[in-house]
């Protein structure tokens, strides 16, 4: 049994990634993608492409053996487009060739006749009656939050603030692009090696497209060079199905590996959002009413957009007690690239809006922003914005105190053009309203005394597999080096659900814990019955029993009762809580915002693996700073993607990041056995808002759209100076 690859394998350059194991003589598959964002396909002529030397096949929709339809939540996307294209990522034909060069050449020879349709790119405009129809109905979902009566709330408010926020399309930009390598086996089955985040979801999709039963396909998860959501949705289905289809049609091994530009266009992105907020409060800072309309642009296809929208709407009022709430959220189809999973999952957008609003309000009230937040922050037993009682036990006071002290919040003299900003965050743990959350694990001790942990949760750098080792080792009382995590293959491991929603350690960890506990108890009984008292668990299996013992366990969280139609109910049982503070210096002349200092405190429940934990939180913060200042997939005047490359798509470099001080608070959740809270995503939620608030503190300009580019800062400064002169 192969084990999961480790960080050590990665740093020494071991051949652990999918592309590393593709032999030179494997066939290559490449996709021809649409030239237009919205068009009817009138004709596809592949004859000239077939003439290119080295080309074995050119496949179109007609050649799909199973159902030519995919979709993580809604089956709305053809695997290979026919009749119509809805965005630039739509693949129309696949070339199977002896090498990449021949495939590239053949792609150029495919002729597609289009009838161009009017596209729609703005999620608000797409809802208008006269807007072009991307699908039958551009409105995909409408979810709500309801509590009390906002009209009354505003009537009782002394101060009301309003603002519109816009956020950009962020690309997950993992280092390794999507890749799959399919091998037809002699027994008629298909083995597909790939960079696969959620193997059992991919299995469902690939089996449907290829028309092969699930048991005829074995998906083997190779080392994953990052995902950040890009490999969570349908991109791995596509590469696996493309390679698999080529292998089936030719009977030969075939690989499909995306280039950087293809990867950045085809995988899921963060939903661009338009958010209109209105908040009312009393002069002493009590929140009376919150009213918001939120539009999320899911692009041409749903992907997991409906689940992202659920998370966004249920986080839309922040971790605050507001007496009266109305939020309506709309998930809208457009002809933009598809949005879906990306670290944070709908949460960073609404955090940017809510946490900016809190500062705008504090400014109007003449109140300290931290004081205003603490006055309204969640505590155990409060009634949240979805009119449900919070059972969890947050303590924002401790988090804020630590951050303010470390950052020197509004103490001492303020340097010119420097500012401090703060943002609170709460990130719902597990799937909540997105579905029943169940995980499973098998823990076994083999006859040689090695402990094996098997789940379908994959390792993409979060250290979750190290966490499983620690948990199993401590429950069984064995050294960590006696525990291995088995490589994920769909034919061999139990379905533990997907490796998303920051759930590995929470859900998988608890399943491993339960399985290991069961295993220990069973062996201890055997020890007692056989009279070998004093022997340890592993020693007994190895020396006395001499055969494998295995236990399986499931861990389930109760279903949450939030109802998106009524806008009421509990969306998540527990959350990860945090406070992020930043100090920035803004260059007035250049508009450049430099983050000088970041201090962030998180309540993570319980620490399982401190090194990986802080790495995840720091990584999330870094990607959050990039969301606030740098990263945006730019669309040109002709609606082509202008920067699908890492030269012009600005991921942060080391030079862009200051020291990040992460403070971890252990306040175990009362609701789960281990008491852990999730850590993979929460870091990304608050930095953008904290930076926007710090920029306001520095220059008194409020930037309401992300990213906060130098150009926006210069324009806002000019406007504010013009007003100052006018006044």
């Amino acid at each position: 049994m192969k084990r999961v690859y480790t960080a050590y394998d990665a740093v020494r350059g071991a051949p652990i990634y999918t592309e590393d194991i593709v032999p030179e003589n494997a066939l290559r598959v490449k996709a021809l993608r649409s030239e237009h964002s919205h068009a009817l396909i009138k004709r596809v002529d592949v004859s000239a492409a077939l003439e290119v030397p080295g080309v074995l096949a050119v496949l179109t929709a007609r050649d799909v053996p199973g159902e030519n339809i995919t979709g993580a939540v809604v089956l709305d996307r053809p695997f290979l487009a026919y009749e119509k294209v809805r965005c630039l990522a739509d693949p129309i034909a696949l070339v199977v060739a002896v090498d990449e060069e021949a495939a590239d050449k053949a792609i150029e020879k495919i002729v597609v006749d289009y009838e161009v349709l009017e596209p729609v790119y703005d999620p608000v405009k797409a809802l208008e009656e006269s807007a072009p129809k991307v699908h039958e109905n551009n409105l995909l979902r409408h979810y709500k939050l309801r509590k009390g009566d906002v009209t009354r709330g505003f009537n009782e408010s002394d101060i009301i603030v309003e603002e519109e926020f816009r956020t950009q399309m962020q690309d997950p930009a993992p280092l390794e692009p999507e890749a799959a390598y399919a091998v037809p086996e002699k027994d008629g089955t298909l083995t597909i090696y790939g960079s696969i985040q959620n193997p059992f979801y991919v299995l469902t999709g690939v089996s449907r497209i290829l028309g092969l039963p699930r048991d005829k396909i074995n998906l083997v998860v190779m080392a994953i060079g990052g995902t950040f959501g890009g490999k969570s949705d349908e991109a791995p289905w596509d590469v696996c199905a493309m390679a698999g289809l080529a292998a089936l049609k030719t009977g030969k091994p075939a690989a499909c590996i995306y280039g950087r530009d293809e990867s950045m266009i085809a995988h899921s992105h963060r939903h661009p959002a338009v958010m209109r907020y209105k908040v009312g409060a009393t002069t002493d800072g009590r929140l009376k009413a919150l009213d918001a309309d939120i539009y999320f642009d899911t692009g041409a296809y749903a992907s997991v957009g409906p689940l992202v929208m659920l998370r966004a709407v249920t986080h839309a009022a922040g971790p605050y007690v507001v007496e009266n709430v109305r939020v309506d959220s709309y998930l809208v189809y457009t002809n933009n690239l598809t949005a879906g999973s990306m670290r944070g999952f709908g949460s960073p957008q609404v955090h940017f809006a809510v946490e900016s609003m809190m500062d705008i309000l504090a400014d109007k009230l003449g109140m300290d922003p931290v004081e205003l937040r603490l006055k309204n922050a969640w505590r155990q037993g409060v009634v949240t914005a979805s009119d449900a009682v919070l059972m969890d036990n947050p303590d924002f006071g401790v988090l804020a105190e630590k951050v303010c002290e470390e950052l020197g919040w509004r103490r001492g003299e303020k340097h010119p053009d420097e500012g401090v900003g703060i943002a609170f965050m709460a990130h719902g743990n597990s799937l909540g309203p997105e579905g029943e959350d169940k995980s499973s694990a098998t823990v076994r001790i083999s006859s040689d005394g090695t402990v094996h942990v098997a789940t379908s949760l994959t390792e993409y750098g979060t250290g979750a597999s190290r966490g499983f080792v620690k948990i199993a080792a401590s429950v069984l009382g064995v050294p960590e080096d006696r525990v291995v995590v088995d490589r994920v293959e769909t034919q061999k491991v139990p379905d533990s659900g997907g490796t998303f929603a920051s759930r590995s350690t929470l859900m998988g960890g608890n399943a491993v814990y339960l399985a290991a506990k069961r295993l220990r108890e069973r062996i201890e009984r055997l020890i007692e019955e056989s009279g070998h008292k004093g022997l340890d668990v592993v020693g007994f299996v190895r020396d006395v029993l001499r055969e494998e013992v295995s236990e399986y366990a499931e861990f389930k969280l109760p279903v949450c009762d939030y109802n998106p139609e009524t806008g009421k109910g509990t969306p998540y049982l527990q959350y990860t809580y945090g406070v992020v503070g930043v100090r920035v210096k803004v260059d007035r002349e250049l508009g450049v915002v430099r983050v000088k200092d970041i201090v962030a405190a998180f309540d993570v429940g319980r620490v399982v693996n401190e090194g990986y934990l802080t790495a995840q939180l720091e990584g999330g913060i870094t990607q959050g700073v990039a969301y606030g200042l740098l990263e945006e997939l730019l669309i040109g005047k002709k609606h082509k993607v202008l920067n699908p490359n890492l030269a012009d798509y600005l991921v942060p470099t080391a030079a862009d990041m200051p020291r990040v001080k992460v403070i971890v608070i252990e306040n175990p959740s009362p609701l789960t056995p281990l008491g852990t809270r999730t850590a993979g995503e929460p870091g990304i939620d608050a930095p953008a808002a904290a930076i926007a608030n710090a920029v306001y503190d520095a220059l008194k300009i409020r930037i309401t759209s992300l990213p906060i580019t130098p150009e926006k800062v210069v324009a806002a400064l000019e406007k504010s100076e013009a007003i100052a002169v006018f006044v």
Partner: protein
Amino acid sequence: MKSLSYIDVFTPRSLEEALELLDKHRGELAVLAGGTDLIIQLRKAQQKAPNLLNIYMLDELRYIKHDNEIIKIGALTDFATITESPIIQRHAPVLAEAAATIGSVQILNKASIGGNIVNASPAADSLPALYVLNATLTLRSKTGTRKVAIEQFYKGYKKLDLQSGELLTEVSFPAMKQNQIGMFFKHGLRQGDAISVVNGAILLEVLNGYVKDARIALGAVAPTVVRATESEKTLIGQRLSEDVILKAAQACLTSISPIDDVRGSAAYRKEMCVNYLYMTLWQMMRMVNL
């Protein structure tokens, strides 16, 4: 991505052989040096890519010499070498400064100064420095050698005074004098490894506190790098003061014609250009008036 499989690559062993090949295949070859720009362009090109003359092996084009107050740099010299060269640091610090900002360590090790010049990106970071140093380019062909001033070399956006059969072999310029100071500036959208939104170089010659000569070159704000002649005129003959440098900075607007693109709008570029000139001149003023 375009297939490059049909491309033929000629790899000569000497400069003579390279010039021979260029002459034989007139107008059919693109020259491959470090390849950091060319390969990406070929992969994205709309038209058929040309065959390549790979000169990367020609070590005879890698040198930095200080020869009778003239600095000579072989066209294949990479930017890491230029940045670290004691000769450049001493006699043309403005170029050492510019060269260091061109890209990541990998790019600095691979990209050559000749490639940066011939690629002719208006945002190329070495060009403003070479403009203010009054650099001369040596172009060789099978039949002879020709020297062109760098400003004359660029005729428009990516239009060069380079005949088919000619190869850029050397860049040379006078060593900076004791009373000359130079500074380079670059505005990128992130702190590390950024492509310039605006860049530029300033070289001032100061005598008894007065500006005797001023050269200012700006990049990414016109189809080619441009000299800010009005700004220069404003400075020459003056003592540096806040008033003078502000006027000089604003005067650059007559020399530039930026466009909107992925890195910024024209209006933003204009503003950045003025602001950077002012900020850089301010620093130079402090150095001069110390």
